[in-house]
Structures are given as C-alpha cells and as structure tokens.
C-alpha cells in the first residue's frame, strides 16, 4: 500500500473561464485556486452548471482557462502548445469519461494501448504491463472484443485500463459511474479506490453521487464557479438528498480515509 506524500500534484491558480452564451459571455469559473497533493483521491461535486466538469477539463489540459494557471508537478501547462500538451496528456495524465470514449473499431487491447502507440512506444515492451492491467480490471478473457461486444461496466473498465497503461501520476474521471447501474457503478468506484490505494495514483473525480464521493479522501464542492468547501464537503453531503443517488445507500461504508 502506498501512502500520500506531501508533494503537490496539481495546482490551480485563480482559474477563470468564460463561455459564450448568445451575445454575452457567461463566467463559469470565477477564479478558482486549489492544490491537490500526490496520492489524493478527490471528488468534485456541485449542482449542475456549477462548473465542476469545466474545472476538471481545465486541470487535465483538455480545455484552457480564460485566465489563471494550472501547474502539473510544478510546471505551468496553461501556455502549452498542442504538441507539448498532447505529450503531457499521453504521459502524465489519464482520463476516464462518463461515456467511455472508446474507439469503436479497435478491440480492448488496442484501445488500451492507444496512448502508447501515440507516444511511439513499442507495444511488445508493454505486454506484461497490459496483462497485469487487464487482470486488474478483470478483462483478461475479453482482450480481443470490440467495445460494442462489452457491457457498459466493461467498457468503463477498458477506459480505466487505457488511462492507466502509461502509468500516469494523475487520473481524471468525469462522472465515471454516471452511465452505469448502481452495482456496476460500485465496481468501478471500488476499482478506482484500489488503484489509488495500491498504486498511489492521484485521482480527481467529478461526480453527482454522494456515495461515490464518500470513497474519496477529500471532497471539493463547487457552486456558481467558486469552491465553497475544500475539505470534507460534509454540509453538502448532508443536504445531498436533493440528488437522486445512482447507488443504494450504505454502499461505501468500508472506505478508508487518508490524511493529507
């Protein structure tokens, strides 16, 4: 088991994001600053339209802030050109989406190996790692299947495996259980927990589900483009009965809390 260390994995400084909305611009993020330490499992929560997904995309480099900076391992990525940013995405971060985002005509193995191929790596050097990851996500016997031959949960496992193949320090997940039933959702969250616990990977997850959020060791609550709670999110979770949680209650009572 790996433990948290005190190094900063990601830091956001005064992140502002505008989106054009008709003839005016809507300020979605109003100057967010945050620090996420290596090995943390963070959940970002908040009402619809609060800006949580936008923050996640900006932190991961998939989108750029209107102003402000994002540091990954101490490097400001806000001004990265396409080539550098793509390399960063390939090597330092992994991403899990709500709708899996697998390439439909590639099989499980090929989808997982995609970041390696793009990084010019020789596939044969990563065979062992692939087998290990496939075993971890429980898809060893499905390696030649195409996405359409898999269930939603299995597809999300492939997406997680793809995010892990380059052994990135940070894993971003945007509502990874949002498209799954409660049982499968639980499996995916448990898998993320294992990855965080066993390999010490930093995980930043956007979720609507309080149960899923309870698995993380810190919950950040965003509302109207601002962080309103950066610690436990307790008050938010208490009022979370405004949501319809996808998972049955009492699902994640056994999770461990890590101290920052």
């Amino acid at each position: 088991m790996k433990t948290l260390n005190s190094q900063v994995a990601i830091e956001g400084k005064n992140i502002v994001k505008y989106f054009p909305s008709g003839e005016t611009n809507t300020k979605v993020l109003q100057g967010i600053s945050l620090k996420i330490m290596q090995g943390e499992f963070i959940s970002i929560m908040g009402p619809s339209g609060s800006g949580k997904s936008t923050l996640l995309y900006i932190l991961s480099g998939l989108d750029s802030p209107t102003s402000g900076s994002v540091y990954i391992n101490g490097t400001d990525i806000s001004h990265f050109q396409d080539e550098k940013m793509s390399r960063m995405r390939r090597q330092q971060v992994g991403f899990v989406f709500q709708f899996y985002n697998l390439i439909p005509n590639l099989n499980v193995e090929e989808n997982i190996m995609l970041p390696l191929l793009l990084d010019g790596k020789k596939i044969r050097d990563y065979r062992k790692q692939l087998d290990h990851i496939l075993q971890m996500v429980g898809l060893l016997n499905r390696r030649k299947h195409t996405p359409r031959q898999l269930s939603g949960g299995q597809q999300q496992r492939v997406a997680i495996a793809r995010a892990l193949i380059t052994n990135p320090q940070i894993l971003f997940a945007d509502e990874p259980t949002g498209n799954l039933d409660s049982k499968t959702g639980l499996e995916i969250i448990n898998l993320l927990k294992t990855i965080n616990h066993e390999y010490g990977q930093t995980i930043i997850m956007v979720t609507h589900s309080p149960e899923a959020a309870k698995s993380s060791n810190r919950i950040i609550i965003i509302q109207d483009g601002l962080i309103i709670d950066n610690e436990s999110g307790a008050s938010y979770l208490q009022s979370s009965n405004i949501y319809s949680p996808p998972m049955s209650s009492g699902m994640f009572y056994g999770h461990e809390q890590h101290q920052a």
Partner: protein
Amino acid sequence: MFILTIILKYILTNLKEHKLRTSVMLLSILLSTILLFVSLSIGASYESAQKKMARGMTGSATISVTTKDSATGISLDDIPDLPEIGVKVGIITGSAIYHKEGYYESMDLIAAEIKALNQINKLRLVNGEEITDFSGNQVILPDRFTSKFSIEKGDLITLQVKGMPVTFEVGEIAAYDTIFLRQTRGTTALFPLDTLRKLVSQTDGYNEILIEPAKGVTTAELKNALQNNMPNHIYDISEIVNEAQIAADARQKSMPFFLISFFALTISVFIIYSSYKVVTLDRLPIIGTFRSIGATEKEVTKVFLFESLIYGLLGGLFGIPIGMLILKFILRGIGKTLSNGIEIPVIISPLSIILPFAVAMVVSISSSWLPIRRASRLPIKDIVLGRVDEKHVSNKATILIGIVLFIISIILPRIAPKSMLYPAGGFSLLGLITAAILNIPLITNLISSGMERLYEVIFKGEGKLSARNIRDNKNVTQNIALLFISLSAVIVISVVGNFVTTYIIDVFHGAELDGLANGDMDQSFVEKVRNMDGIKKILPIYIMENSVQANRNNLIRLEATDNLDWYSSMFALNYSNGLLEQAFYEFHHERNILLSENCMDRTGISVNDIISLSYNGMEYRYRVIGSFKSRATDAEAVIPSYYATQDFGMQTYKLLAYTAVDPEAIIIQIRDLFGETPNWSRTVKEFTTDALATVEAFLQPMHSMTWLILLLATVGVINNLLINYIQKRRSIAMYKSVGLSNRQNIQITLLEGFSSGLIGAVIAVFVSYLEIQTIFLVAGPKITMVPELKHSTFILAGIAGIVINLIGSVAPILKSHQMKLVEEIKFE
C-alpha cells in the same frame, strides 16, 4: 396532426437552413437527374443519327423497286396505288470520276424530283436556303467534297462521265447530310432530273423507285403488298436496309451513353442512400423527442419520407430543365461541326423525361426508406438516452453472398446463349458492383492488415494506427465503395468511349498498313512501287466484284493474294476459330478459300466445306479452310493469286497495299505513276482524317458526358468525405483526449486518406477490368475489334482516386484543428 405540423415545420426549417450536407445531397440528386436525362437524350439522338447515316440517301424510304432487266427503266405508274404506300420517288443514277492533282474521286450521280426527294430525305444547303431554279448543267455537291478540293458555289468542275469530260456549274453546296450521306468511299452528286436523263441516256422512267411506307405500315407489310400486286418476273422488290441490323449497330455505337446513364444511376443511389443513413442517425435525437411526445412510428416515417420526396421533387423539377439547357449547350458546342457534317436530330422522348424524374423520386424515397424505417422502429428509451448503436450484421453471410455473386457475374456472360447475352451482361455489371460493395469490408481488412505491419515499420505508431483505423471501419468502407463506383465508372466509360471512337473512325485499327492504291496495275507497276525509296512491304491484290459465284451465291467481292501472312496483318483479319500455321502454309498450294463470317452466314457455307466457285460457265472446287472478320477490307472471300490467274484469268491487279517509312511520299509517287489512269489512292492517315471529319460531331457529346460523370463522382466523394468527417469528428476527439497531437492527426488522417484511396483505386481497377470484359463479351459477337486497355487509363484513374481522397482529408484536418474538444467528448 399537431405533431405532424411541428415535424413538418422542423423539416422545412432544415431545408431552408441550406446546410452543406443538404446542399450536397440535393446537388447529387440534381446532377444524377441531369446526367440521366442528358445521357438518355443524347443516346437516343445518337442512335437516331447512326440510323440516319446507315440509311444514307434513301432517308425514310425502306423499299426499292427496280426492273429485272436493267436496260429497261421503271415508271412511277408501274407502282400500283396501294394504301401501304406513303411516298414514292423515282431516282436516276449514274457514275462519274472527278480528277484533280493526282486525286481521283468516284462519284455516284443521282437525280430525282426535288419535291418528292425532300419528302423522304430533305436536302440541307449550307447557306440554309431552299433550292430554287435547279436546272441545266448544274450540280449540287456536299461540302465535305467541296472543302476538300476548294470548290466554291458558282465554280465550274469537270467530270468524266462514260469516259467523256463534261463541265458543270456548282449550283449549290449542301451539308454532308441526308442524301449525301454514304457509308462507302466516294461522293454523291445531285443533278437536275433532265440533265442526268440525258447524261445516262435514260429517256423515260427511272433506274429505281424508292418507297416510304404509309404511316403505321411496316416495311415487311409494304414489301408483301407490292409483291402481291406486281409481277415478280419483271420487278425486283427489296428492302433497302436491314432495319434490325441498323438498330443493333446504332445501339452498339451509342453504348457509352447508356453506360453513363447506368453508372450515373448507381452512383446517385449510393450517394443518396449513404447521405440518408447519416442524416437519419444525426436526427435520432429529434426522432426520439417527437416519439416521446406522442408521434407514432408511421407518422415519423411518413414525415421523413415526405422530406426525401421534397428532395426528389426538387431534383426532378430542376434537373430536367437544366438538363435541357445542357443538352442544348452540348449540341450547340458542336454546331460548327454540324454545319459541315451530319445533323444530329435532338430526340427528347417522353421516356427520357419521365424516367429521370421517376428515378429522382424513387431513388430519394427508397434510399431514405430503409434508414428512416429503422430509426422510427428504435425503442424511444434508447434514442433518448443516446444508446443507439449501428446494428452489427453478420459479416460471414454478406461475404459469402458477395463471393457467390462475384463468381456468377463473371461466369454468366461467358456461358449465356447468344439470345440471352444482353440480360446476362446487365446482371453481370450490376452483380460485379454489388459483389464488390459486399466484399469491400473483407478486402479492406485484408489489405489494412498488411499495411499495419508495413506502416508500423515506416511511420511508427501513427502508421500502425492509421492502417488499423481502416479495419472494421464502416465509414472507411463506405468511402471506399463510393470511390470504387466513381472510379470504375470513369475507367469503363473512358475505355468504352475510346473504343467506340476508334471503332467509328479507324477502320484500319490494328492493321499493319500505311497506304492503299486502288486502280488497274500490272506487274511492272508493282515492281516500280516495290523499288520506291522507303517501301517496306508491298502486297498486290486481284479483285473480282460480282462475277464469281460460290455454290451459286454471288460473291460481292473476291480477293486473291500470294502472301496470306501479309494480307492477314495488313487488313487485320481476325480469324474466328484461329487459323493454324499449317493452313497458312497450305493456303497457296491448293484451291483453298477463306470466307468472311458475313458471307458464311449469308450462304450457309461452313469451314471445311468443299464449295464450287463458278465463273463464265466453268466450275472449280475450293476447300473452305477458315473464316474471318475484318473491318479493313470488304472482301467476302480470299483465294491464292495463283488460282485466281489460273481459274479466273486474272491479269491486272486492282489493289496495292503497302507499308513504308514515309507513306505520304509513296502515295504521291503512286498517284504520279497512275498518271491519267483513274485510281483511288490514299494513305491510311488521309483516310482516317476524312472519317474523323465526318464523325467528329458524334464524338463531342461523349467527351462532354464523361466530364459530367466525373463531376457527379467528385460530388459523391466530397459528400462521402463530409459524412465521413461528421462521423469521425467524435473519434478524432477521443484520440485527442488520450494525447493525439495535431501533427499526429495530420499524419494519421493523410495516411488513412491515402490508404483508403489506394484500396478504392485497386478495387476499381480490378472490377472495371472485369466490367469491360463483360461489356465486350456481350458486344463481342457483333464487333471485329478487340478493346485496347491502356495501362495509363487505369493508373491515372487510380492516382485520381488517391488524390481525391487526400484532398478530401484536408477539410477534416482543418476542422479538427478548430475542434472544441470538450464539447465533442462530453456529449454522446
């Protein structure tokens, strides 16, 4: 009903928005309607012009009546008044020779009542005026003749009539059309009736009466009526032309236009179907929304079908008038040629209007019906939740059907009986295209597997990915299918078009011949030519016309040679069942004869028969050692020279064929050698140039149409690339989300474009080769020429395919640069 109105409003707004995809789809329907209309109309016009040319001077008359005793004329009163008769025209004929600067031109002289003649074949003067005051020593000549010898209206020309020089004034110059059209060498000249009567000493009656059947009466009925009402021992009543043969020949020559129609139809079906597939997928959320608020399956299907009906209607309504303008433009474009040559009658039949219109409607509706029906049957929940995946059809069954269809399509035209060749050929063409489309996924997967290994070595990960992306990718296979159809259409139309052009113009195609001299020649003449500088091969030939009978059948033309090997190559003889080397050797040593296939069909003689050749009351037994087809000679029979002199007393050569370093220099010397002796001496090049001047008008529309089909094919490919990008957008976003850079995207997209272009081109080249085989297997029994398959046509088409695909990759590359990554990824 309320929902129906809402959906209708949505569709109309959609149409109004002029989305690029809607415009491309409309353009493809419009273009295919135009192309179908123009190709059908030109095809019909062209067929009609070919028939007109084949009928020549007789125009609409189909029966000729002459007296059995050629010394006696025939009067118009000799023809009984029968209801089957439409128009009857008395014709006086004669012959003459025109000689200028070594050129001898044989002339057929004709005269008739101009008023009556105009009824069966209206004269067309180049100045567009009517003939007035045509009498005395006047002559009307075709412009093809006058321009060749620089003769103007009002000039005087001297003709040798019955060996005597007679001078005439050129009264008018007519277009090389109607009565002046001919399929044989020489020129037709029209004289005032009384003038020619005197010249040929035909004081009363005519040489021939031409009769046009009354409306609704067939030629056979007219002939029957005449035979029943006229004494058969006095009159010969014959059909002027073989209508069925003319129709078959004309159809063959207009084949490229109908091929263009066929491919235009195939391409448009594919474009419209693939467009609808994507449009429907794109509209699934809308369909889901409408269904969720109470629209029934039927209502959704009906309304979306209505939308396609609007496309079809717009295509049809605008396509036909635009097609008429283009038709006019194409025909006007060749107007200058027309004034000197044959007028192509513009035929816009009801069929050529109704068919493209109906096709636009039917193709639009049927292409949209399948995807729309599928979409409207989807569970509402799946549509609303965005869980609709493209149905995965079993590949094995499709591939098996494709392979079986492919084999049948290749075998069928080869085993079909003659009477079934056309339907078999049609099935084979459609079958080959369908089989190729069905097997494209398999072929693409096989080729891309090989490419994956190769590209990985050359282009590393990006290369491997680009090749891998092609495999099992419906968008790519669809793109390859359309590219293949478009390219094969261009290849087949080019090859067949070129073939028809060569077939019409170059009767000496494939003949190792540079020039021909036609006139009386003795041995010393031949030796003088043999000794001319630069002569390579020289072949003197005896000719006997209408004087020898084979098994009592008149041989129209019998030729004799002492070198069958050279004769075969110089006149491009195509031996029907091959001719053994032994037969070549034996030919000169015994009384052997070769017969043309037409002659064998006419006389019922077969190879290996011993036949009797009779001449001047003597009979000689000859063995038929083979049969041939040739477009370069009219000979019906060929025998060894030795026996021509022995049996038929031949002393003077009539024809001299040669090959030379400088054919023009030789022909000038030959003309000089003939001196005042009438002769017809031309180089093959001169002959072909003459022929080209006549048929140029025919060839122009064919080239224009080939460009139009290329345009349709390009629109199709652009449409497909656009569709491809729409479908691919999300997948590019997915790649980018895992670290694909713009540089890598450019590399992968270009490699994908190149590879799919290459696969499409390879399939197109292969299938179009098979299609050409099918076309010539069907047309083969009637033609004597083998199609020339130039590698360059195939290679250029292949390169064009790759280039089109590469150009098509530019838009996706540019668009993906501006892509809003998060939007693409986040929304399913």
